[in-house]
């Protein structure tokens, strides 16, 4: 898998360099505008920071990340280029896992740029007591965003993969892929919830700290331990979806 990762990084090295350059450029811009990378932004500087660091660059960052993700995950399926990979004895799991690791590298770079662009302004102004540099909060936020992100990427990928595997010869394959997309979202949330309820029931660890019930609607809030387990459950489901993608490539490919 490391060999695959090497080629994925080589294939996307220009985008990778662009991300790193963007990060340092925005760090320098922020220091130039506010005098401090994580310092509190006030008055006129806040206005300038919001315009120059919060507007267009955010749109650019979103486009950058999604373009990179699309290119990494889908290039071998969207054209004939790179299909040599499917004639090798590489397992589908290794193929997808190396792609996800590459996306993870891009996600970390994008997350770092995001911190410089928005979060530091928001947290220092709106919630000044919030410590941006608290490692636990940073890790918690990173885990929350990454599990959420990879959940969506994998659900989207598996749905699209249906058009190249099980549903390759179906007339309305794109509509079917959309239905698979919806079904996978529902199944993911259902599994995640069942697993958390299961952990809550079989261990002494409190997962939910309050429940609000009004007719059929039930709202539950997670404790800190519950949050940790929700990330863990997220990681388990992401690994399961990676295996599912790999199995589809190994057993049901239809190019």
């Amino acid at each position, binding site marked *: 898998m490391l060999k695959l990762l090497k080629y994925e990084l080589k294939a996307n090295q220009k985008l990778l360099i662009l991300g790193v350059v963007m990060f340092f450029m925005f760090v320098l811009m922020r220091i130039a505008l506010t005098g401090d990378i994580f310092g509190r932004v006030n008055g006129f500087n806040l206005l300038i920071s919001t315009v120059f660091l919060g507007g267009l660059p955010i749109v650019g960052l979103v486009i950058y990340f999604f373009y990179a993700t699309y290119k990494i995950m889908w290039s071998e399926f969207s054209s004939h*280029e790179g299909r*040599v990979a*499917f*004639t*090798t*004895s590489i397992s589908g799991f290794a193929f997808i896992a190396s792609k996800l690791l590459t996306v993870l590298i891009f996600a970390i770079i994008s997350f770092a740029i995001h911190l410089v662009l928005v979060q530091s302004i928001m947290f220092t102004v709106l919630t000044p007591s919030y410590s941006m540099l608290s490692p636990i909060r940073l890790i918690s936020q990173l885990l929350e965003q990454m599990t959420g992100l990879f959940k969506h990427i994998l659900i989207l990928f598996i749905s699209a993969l249906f058009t190249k595997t099980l549903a390759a010869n179906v007339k309305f394959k794109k509509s079917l892929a959309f239905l698979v997309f919806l079904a996978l979202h529902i199944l993911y949330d259902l599994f995640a919830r069942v697993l958390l309820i299961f952990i809550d029931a079989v261990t002494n660890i409190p997962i939910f700290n309050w429940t609000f019930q009004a007719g059929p609607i039930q709202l539950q809030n997670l404790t800190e331990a519950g949050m940790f387990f929700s990330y863990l459950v997220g990681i388990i489901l992401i690994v399961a979806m990676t295996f599912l993608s790999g199995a589809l490539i190994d057993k049901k490919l*239809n*190019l």
Partner: protein
Amino acid sequence: MDNIVTIRQLQKNFGPTNALNSINLTLEKGKVYGLLGPNASGKTTLLKILAGLISSYSREVLIDGHKPSTKTKRIVAYLPDRSDLYSWMTVRETIEYYHDFFEDFDMQKASETMEFMDLNNNDVVEKLSKGMKARLKLALTLARDAKLYLLDEPFDGIDIKTREKLIETIINSQRDDSCMLISTHHVNYVEYLLEDLIFLSKGHVLLKKNIEELREQNNKSIVKMYVEVFENA
């Protein structure tokens, strides 16, 4: 007889289209087969199934006794009709890629073939002409010590000089322990390369015979027979 490929009643549909219909075929080690047929006869589909790029089909396909899978991909060298290489790589990087992912890839043989084919290590795949890409694909495929070689239209859109080089490379790569299946509709280019012919039309095997026997029986060239067979198909 030592069969490398056994196909029984193979059926493949693309939606309502019947691409392959009740194909029964065995391929032996040590032989070079020509898979001949007009466009849309099912040649590429058959090769893709053997290469493991199409996994959904009915009935049985066995390569060295195993269903097409990551295991059989270790012994199958496939040359597709379109370039499947990464366009951003240089020739040297494609060689490294093959070396990294195909255990049977022979670096020495690759270097020799690249030199014979006038390929420059520093050229980027994207910038290569169609003919040079064809040379590169064939050089990489034949640098593997595979048990089964699948060549899909290796001579399409290339000049005479390149074609002669490709044919010479194919001849030099023939081994007793391997089998080669060459799909083409340029019968005249490959006639003297082949031992057995398989005529495919509309997903059916019309004929599978030794090329010498065919010539003796019909007293005609293969090109003439090809035209007659497919006129009546």
